[in-house]
């Protein structure tokens, strides 16, 4: 496949486990396109879904089989929508005669929980200012989730997608161009974000003429996020994504005192 050429030749694998699932991706695309969740333009959304899925595969993200299953589901729905009514095959009596319905119901239900999660997230930020005696209750243990609280993986991929789109598909000179490596880009990123300097993803990719370079840079960003050296944030949905270094991001040595007693 053509896109495979974009992979850095050292077979770099970030293996960032993606905790978001296919439903997240669909909701993301629906929100991004501002379409009605009860009347999803299945053709358009399927195309976009596949595009993201392909990028995730290229990036070697650890995507679950669920993403593939959902792709198949979308395809089935799409093909059934193309058929005239009488050929759609058996449909549950009580259900609406729309092949999209199951999916819609699942998305709507999931969205309610997502909203509830937003409520919890809000409470959590309020509670950040509340301490019980000796600052005790806030300790959730030294387990900062990877630094992507405010940004979903799909936001990142969307940024990558945009950057790739700006570069002409086939640039002859790319074949002869210098090769980029992820580790090189890791060093470069750490330098560029030194002293707490924030960097937008847009600026990060600006001026890059090679798709290969963009992908390497992107993988470096993922790697640093995974190592908790960089955090990505986005102040409002679909705003520019900003990356910056995590303060004291060096992994702390863990003291296992108790086990030795």
């Amino acid at each position, binding site marked *: 496949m053509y896109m495979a050429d974009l992979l850095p030749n050292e077979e770099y694998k970030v293996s960032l486990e993606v905790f978001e699932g296919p439903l997240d991706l669909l909701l993301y695309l629906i929100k991004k396109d501002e379409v009605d969740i009860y009347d999803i333009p299945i053709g358009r959304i399927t195309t976009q879904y596949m595009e993201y899925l392909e990028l995730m595969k290229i990036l070697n993200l650890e995507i679950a089989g669920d993403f593939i299953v959902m792709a198949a589901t979308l395809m089935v729905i799409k093909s059934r929508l193309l058929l005239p009514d009488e050929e759609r095959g058996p449909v549950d009596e009580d259900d609406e005669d729309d092949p999209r319905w199951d999916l819609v119901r699942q998305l709507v239900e999931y969205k309610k*929980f997502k909203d509830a999660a937003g409520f919890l997230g809000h409470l959590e930020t309020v509670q950040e200012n509340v301490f019980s005696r000796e600052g005790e209750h806030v300790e959730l243990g030294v387990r900062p989730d990877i630094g992507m609280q405010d940004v979903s993986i799909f936001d990142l991929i969307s940024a990558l997608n945009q950057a790739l789109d700006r570069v002409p598909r086939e640039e002859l000179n790319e074949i002869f161009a210098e090769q980029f490596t992820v580790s090189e880009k890791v060093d470069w990123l750490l330098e560029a974000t030194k002293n707490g300097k924030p960097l937008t993803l847009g600026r990060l990719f600006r001026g890059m003429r090679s798709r290969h370079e963009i992908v390497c840079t992107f993988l470096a960003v993922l790697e640093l996020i995974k190592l908790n050296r960089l955090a990505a944030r986005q102040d409002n949905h679909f705003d520019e994504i900003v990356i910056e270094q995590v303060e004291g991001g060096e992994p702390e040595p863990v003291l296992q005192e108790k086990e030795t007693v």
Partner: protein
Amino acid sequence: MSNIEVLPELKQIIGALLFAAKKPLTSREIRKALVDAGASYGGPYQQFAEFKEDDILAAIEELKNELVQSSTGLCIAEVAHGFRLQNEINCGPWVRTLLDKDQTARLSKPALETLAIIAYRQPILRSEIESVRGVAVDQVLRNLVEMQLVRVTGRSELPGRPWLFGTTQRFLEHFGLRSLEEMPGMEELKRMVPVEKPERTKPFPAMEKELEQQTQQAVTEEEDESGEAEEAD
């Protein structure tokens, strides 16, 4: 043993108890401390055993007002079915600076979602969470259990006797919730039938082992978990 010249008022005792407790206290627990102290110290200490829970609640109310009026920077909040002494929210930035908590580890979105699903639908199977989220929740769930926001509440009767998960007392404390009922749309989301979907229940060996111990613990600790643990049926 300890010679006290002036006996404290009820309000003072409550303030001291809330201060010393490592978790939110209910009026019942406070009453128990009054009764127990009366029994073990005797004499003038016994008179405090007379107070009823209503007296205690009234004293808490009074204390609440005093703390705010004399701007001590402290306040009493109702959290996790009990009362908790905590700093006033607007003093948070300084406390965070002092404790070096400026970079508080917040929960990721997937973690919050998983928590929300568990909170509404407990007791719930891993496979049920997965069918709502449409993605494996292994790692997320493991983290939540490790953080003690989620615990195993029992085993289902289904083949393979999979674990059932629920939220903890600490969950309520972390989010400053008085009870699960404070979550929005509780009634509606609780009732909704999970969407059906083929369930993948692959073995979960590492975690199973870890959890095995915790359930045993959970069973013995059952009485701390006053509210939500019970409704497992």
